């Protein structure tokens, strides 16, 4: 402990790592800078752009979708976590994997399943339902992990102090799940602010879809970026909520005693639990998968253009792998600096990364397009710029995984390696990299998944002629060629499955 404090006192940053991390941080700030600059340059005109009934409607719509979708995710994800972890139902591990699987299915595939099956399925409530089905795993996974990590001795203490099982649950378990549930809910909220595909498909409009339409119809930056300004403001509000709650996020385990092996718990919901869980799984996975297969089998527009499928799958995997590799490499100096050095610089760089990730893909894409056209036209519609957008969007996914594994490496190992004659670069190569390899792999898998299912930024930024499975699916399904769209959805899910499996096995 003393050594950590000592390290904090002497804030010495390795110059190369600091420089790399600073560049990454600046890159993450580009979109925000763009929004601020364009709002500022619009000046008084901004009022005319925003003070319209249309903007009020969008605001109400966005708040409704985000609020109700997050609440639904907490309800469904929390209940699922309880049923899986605390009822002793058989096949706990299988249920965990299946319930986490919607993470691999983009929201616009789930909405496609429902809306192409029931053509009247559109509007607010369907949006909330699909949002919940697509994003409840973001609450389910952390809450289930928190439930698993709770020290049973605390509950036993409550029972010994005279509380019954239900009172014990609400007085000792629920409060300790709150941080996980709130963290998950905020994540859902950020995703929903940025959600484009599902909401567009269900014929509702929020800021994100409105920005897209505005840009596509007019190619005019100012209207779109005024709306983007409001969207960014909403994101910052959510982030602020997170920062405010983060201070109270600690549910410490006190005392260093050995954690006891938990005994299997069973209760009377043991055999009833599979029923609601099955409903969740059918609604989130069964319906989309069934509908995709149905279109494959029956539609007249079904075609198996093998060459196109192979080419699109190939470019998707290449883009995802490149995005994952670059983002993970960029995340390493940031994660190292944040975990190993205190002080202002690491904190700012980390925050900058979160700002980048919480901005909707559409804002990031708009920013990069505008800047490229103005300053580096050769970058416009280049693969390099698309990869840059992916890095900005998904950097925190890699940083979080790397930080988690770095945190488990005692800093003393670095000191010992130095004392054994290694220079800092040698320490990085022979100690840090082997030890964070697993975390880096998990982070890379997350980024891979995210890139594979990314729609908005790819639609706007991909070089002409480059299609991913997501964009190809999107263009067919928005032309109502459901049968033609189906094979791309299927392939996307099949390709995403291994990475998802990897992640749930780790969780």
């Amino acid at each position: 402990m003393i050594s950590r404090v000592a390290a904090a006192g002497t804030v010495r940053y390795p110059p190369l790592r600091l420089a790399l991390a600073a560049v990454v941080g600046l890159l993450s700030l580009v979109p925000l800078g763009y929004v601020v600059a364009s709002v500022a340059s619009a000046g008084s005109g901004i009022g005319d752009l925003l003070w319209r009934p249309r903007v009020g409607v969008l605001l109400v719509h966005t708040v409704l979708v985000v609020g109700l979708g997050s609440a639904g995710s907490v309800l469904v994800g929390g209940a699922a976590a309880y049923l899986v972890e605390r009822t002793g139902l058989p096949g706990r591990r299988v249920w965990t994997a299946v319930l986490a699987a919607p993470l691999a299915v983009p929201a616009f595939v789930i909405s496609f399943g429902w809306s192409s099956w029931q053509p009247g399925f559109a509007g607010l409530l369907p949006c909330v339902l699909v949002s919940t089905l697509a994003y409840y795993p973001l609450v389910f996974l952390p809450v289930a992990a928190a439930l698993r990590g709770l020290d049973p001795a605390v509950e036993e203490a409550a029972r010994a102090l005279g509380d019954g099982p239900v009172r014990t649950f609400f007085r000792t378990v629920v409060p300790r799940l709150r941080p996980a549930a709130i963290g998950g809910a905020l994540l859902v909220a950020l995703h929903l602010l940025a959600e484009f595909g599902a909401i567009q498909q269900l014929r509702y409009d929020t800021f994100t879809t409105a920005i897209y339409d505005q840009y596509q119809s007019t190619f005019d930056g100012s209207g779109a970026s005024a709306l983007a300004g409001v969207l960014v403001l909403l994101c910052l509000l959510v982030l602020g909520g997170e920062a405010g709650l983060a201070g109270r996020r600690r549910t410490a385990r006190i005392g260093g005693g050995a954690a006891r092996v938990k005994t299997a718990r069973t209760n009377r919901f043991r055999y009833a639990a599979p029923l609601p869980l099955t409903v969740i799984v059918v609604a989130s996975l069964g319906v989309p998968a069934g509908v995709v297969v149905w279109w494959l089998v029956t539609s007249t527009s079904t075609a198996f253009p093998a060459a196109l499928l192979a080419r699109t799958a190939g470019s998707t995997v290449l883009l995802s792998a490149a995005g994952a590799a670059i983002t993970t490499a960029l995340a390493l100096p940031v994660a190292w600096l944040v975990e190993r050095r205190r002080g202002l610089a690491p904190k700012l760089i980390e925050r900058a990364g979160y700002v980048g990730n919480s901005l909707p893909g559409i804002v990031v894409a708009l920013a990069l397009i505008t800047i490229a056209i103005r300053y580096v036209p050769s970058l416009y519609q280049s693969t390099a710029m698309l990869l840059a957008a992916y890095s900005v969007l998904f950097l925190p996914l890699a940083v979080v995984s790397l930080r988690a594994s770095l945190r488990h490496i005692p800093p003393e190992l670095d000191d010992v390696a130095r004392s054994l004659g290694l220079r800092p670069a040698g320490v990085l190569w022979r100690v840090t990299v082997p030890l964070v390899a697993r975390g880096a792999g998990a982070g890379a898998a997350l980024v891979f998944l995210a890139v594979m299912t990314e729609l908005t930024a790819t639609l706007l930024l991909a070089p002409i002629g480059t299609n991913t499975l997501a964009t190809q699916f999107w263009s067919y399904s928005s032309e109502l060629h459901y049968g033609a769209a189906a094979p791309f959805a299927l392939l996307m899910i099949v390709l995403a499955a291994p990475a998802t499996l990897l992640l749930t096995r780790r969780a």
Partner: protein
Amino acid sequence: MNGLEVKALTKSYGATTVLDGVDLTVPAGGLTAVIGRSGGGKTTMLRLIAGFDRADSGSIRIGDHPADGLPPERRRIGYVTQEGSLFPHLTVAGNITFGLGWRDRRRQSRVGELLELVGLGQAYRKRQPHQLSGGEQQRVALARALARRPDLVLLDEPFSALDATLRGTTRRAVRAALAATGTTTVLVTHDQDEALSIADRVALLRDGRMVQEGTPMDVYRAPVDPAVAAFLGTVCSLDATLDGDEADTVLGRLGTPLRAYGKGMVLIRPEQIVPAADGLAAIVEGVAFHGHDGLLTLRAKDATLVARWAGHLLPRPGDEVRIAVEGSAIASFPDTVG
């Protein structure tokens, strides 16, 4: 030649001065224990010697070379932490050869010899760190530190994370390995028993300064002030009238280490108060029993005394015993000076 020379070392973190001009000299091949309370600057001093942090001022000389400004990897040191800090991704052999060149790493040269040195068998070569007990981990950590034949080994509370039984055997194994290689060693610890039992010399760090340095016996028997005396072991203080080289106390006339006059106080160790058939009468007020011995709280002529007697001699509370003092006082302090 000295194995380590530290001169006027200072270090502050912000407004907090942690080291305030520390001097320390360790003879070549010797083991000096630096003791002091937690947070007293011991670890900071060790990290400065190792080169993990930079001192504000002062100089450090390791073996025959000045170390100031050198990065840790060029100081020719070995460093063992509280938890051993073995590399979890490497086997025992991989850990031990970590600091050697790649050819030696591949051949695993010296692994057998080093394992033997720290008292572990060849079977340990292929074990993973998590398969070892805490004591075994510390031995491997020492073998790893010794593999490069360092000029100086720094031990940062290496036994404090071990339970009592492992601590004793691990301590002996570590001491034997260091003695066999003749490596100059600095041991940082807050455990005075440990320091007194395995060190050649003891240095006491307090509030960022070295307050006393000497052999364990000297420091224990002639502490420079009451705080040092109390830190190194239980003391019994007696009101006294100081009279030159001697002092009059409730227990009679005692020799004192310093010449002083007037009202004051002398300190003795509890084990100096022994049963004596013709001694002073005292009432036993309390007995803290430890098995092999016990601490008695005694009351004699309005004075409260503390005595340490062997377990089989211990009386019961309320008994009357007769006592006398062996040897002279370990310290004396006139009231006027405090």
